[in-house]
């Protein structure tokens, strides 16, 4: 209906061709039926970049800044996914970043409580870890000392066979997640791991 009144010829455009500057009878430029090329040829070459001391210095600053940022703890690398088979060397080689520790110490008073994560302590001696735990847990008054030491020794023996430190780490991460997702102070028990759970509880209570 729109094109019937005027422009009954071959082209019914909404604007007058004469006003656009095309003489009558002169062909319109051919219409393009495909997207423009990705790298069209340039008729005019771009202006060369500014060079000079200032430009070079700023470029060096930029590269140094990037390099420095990669070494700072703010550059977050996700923990490498664990391979399916546990290896003996995993106990001694887990210096890689773990997901649930943060490498720097933020000011927690400026951040919402829900974002709190365990801060990674500087280099701990892995071998002495069970000894520390034993010391700390023996300072706790809830269990008698002897019972605790016995439990600990049993746990260590079991741990040697079952890749103990890895399990404990995983238990810790599970417990940490549960603590943070649920209300704080809620403790969950898993029956098959009751012995190890008590040790973990002590550790967490003392760690806060």
């Amino acid at each position, binding site marked *: 209906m729109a094109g019937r009144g005027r422009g009954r010829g071959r082209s019914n455009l909404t604007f007058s061709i004469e*006003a656009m500057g095309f003489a009558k009878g002169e062909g319109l430029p051919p219409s393009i039926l495909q997207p423009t090329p990705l790298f069209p040829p340039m008729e005019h070459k771009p202006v060369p970049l500014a060079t000079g001391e200032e430009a070079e210095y700023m470029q060096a600053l930029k590269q140094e*800044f990037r390099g420095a940022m990669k070494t700072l703890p*703010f550059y977050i690398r996700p923990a490498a996914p664990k391979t399916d088979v546990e290896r003996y060397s995993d106990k001694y080689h887990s210096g890689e970043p773990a997901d649930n520790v943060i490498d720097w110490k933020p000011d927690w008073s400026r951040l919402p409580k829900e974002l709190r994560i365990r801060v990674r302590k500087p280099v701990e001696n892995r071998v002495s870890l069970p000894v520390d735990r034993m010391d700390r847990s023996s300072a706790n008054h809830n269990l008698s000392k002897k019972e605790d030491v016995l439990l600990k020794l049993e746990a260590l023996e079991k741990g040697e066979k079952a890749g103990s430190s890895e399990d404990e780490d995983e238990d810790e991460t599970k417990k940490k*997640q549960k603590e943070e997702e649920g209300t704080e102070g809620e403790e969950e028990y898993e029956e098959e791991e009751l012995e190890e759970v008590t040790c973990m509880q002590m550790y967490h209570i003392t760690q806060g």
Partner: protein
Amino acid sequence: MTAQEARLCGLLLREHFGEVVEKIGTHLLRSGAQNLRTIVNESGTPIDLVKKSLCVLMKHGACRFSIGRKGPGSPVEYQASCERILGILRYPRYIYTAKTLYSDTGELIIEELLQRGHMTMSSIVKMVADRLTHNMEEGRSIEYNEVVSTFSKLVETHFLQRCPPVSEVVPPVSTAPTVPGAPAAPVSTGPPTPESFSDCYLVPSVSLAGRGKRRRSGEDVVLDQGTTKKAKTDLQTHGDEGIYWQVNFERFHLHFRDQTIISAVASKLDQAWESLGTSRFDSDYETSSEIVRTMLRMSEVTTTPSASCTQALSANEVFRSLPANYSISRPILDQYLTLLVDDPMEFVGKTGDSGGGMYVVNLHKALTNLARATLESVVQEKFGSRSARIFRLLLRKRHLEQKQVEDFAMIPAKEAKDMLYTLMSENLVLLQELPKTPDHAPSRTFYLYTVNQLATARMLLQHCYKAVANLIDRRLFQTKESKRLLEKSQRIEAIMASLQASGAEPEQLTEVEEMISAPEKQQLESLRHHINKLDSAENQVDETIFLLKSYVASTARITR
């Protein structure tokens, strides 16, 4: 926040904070304010990584948290700030400016602060002192006091400011949570600026005595005082806990704006006179820019950042405040001022006659003209000088018909038509229809070509963002392509360094050097050259981005 800006933000986050932060950051940018659970579910990242990323983003000021929209009981919501992430592009410029104003100490302070987001004064001072000491020769070290004095100077000139205090997330019942402390204060609609706190520029009185420590290379870090004392000094509190300092980007932007205006005046007016004059001293030819610099310096304190022109200054004041080495006489100064006022770029305006003439620097007009010059230059470089002539013509004359364009530009009809259509296809030139009759008949309407400067500036700004994103992409691609080669060269450098440190014979060194073949060396060289070029290009596109953004922001302020 446009698609180009989001893409650029993603690339910047990836380069500086890793892919995890990139994923969380772009997710937040695209979806607005969200709470932690939603972020975890929608982005599909484990919750610990999300928490870590949010901590990093908040430390660097790229993200902020606020109470949920549903009221006091709802979970905390996080919002990322696009501006702040795009500001990462400009970090080298900030550091370089600090270097020119406050030499190496200032440069290192700003660099450390930019790397870490916000820090307490004592930690900054210690880190900078250690770095400076590390770079100096053996036996010399920097006193903390020197660094503290530079720090105070930076705070005095407002280049550094305190971070606004953060109130507890659980708010008192009646007030908004972001207004700390005063329950009677009115509810604020947006986050408070750091300047709304009175202590913003107050340097805490902190007792920092000591010198920078030099880090010795080697396994055990042995300091002068011994390891136990080092542990003690690290835990020492200096009385400024909880007072964090951040870089005041707005102040840097004002400084850049002033610098741009001064250099524009210098390149336009000073060179013209240099070609005509016969003076013996080069400093004579910088007078007009020196006058403008003096005027801007005097107005730094009196003018608000969002003003469209500086406070009026009398010619007497300007004369008194000129630097000592500029011994021009009073009538000459008046002549210079008159010439500045008459210049078509309208940098300086005259607002009155008291005190020998009251003069202002027209900040908004200067920015507009500089943006216009940028647009004209872009058209010239992309389409040729005749298209640029048409573009300038349209900018000046606003609306022109096809015939008038051909006549005024003095270009043959066919070519003018071609150029106009090319410019139209790039959206630089718009068509305005003026109907003569109510039925809009094509034969009875005027078709006028016009250029809308503000819209064109915005469009070019987006093109700039796209350009920078492409540059970064290309650099990452080239690095990835030659990753094997780069790793090999790094390993060889490490071997060389260790060999040299342990004192090896020259034959061993040459043997290690020959592990890289000559074509590989050439490849490495060309790769380095390309990467340097791409980095330099990013810095320069950022200058255009700054200019266009300042113009758009200034216009938005004026029209509000």
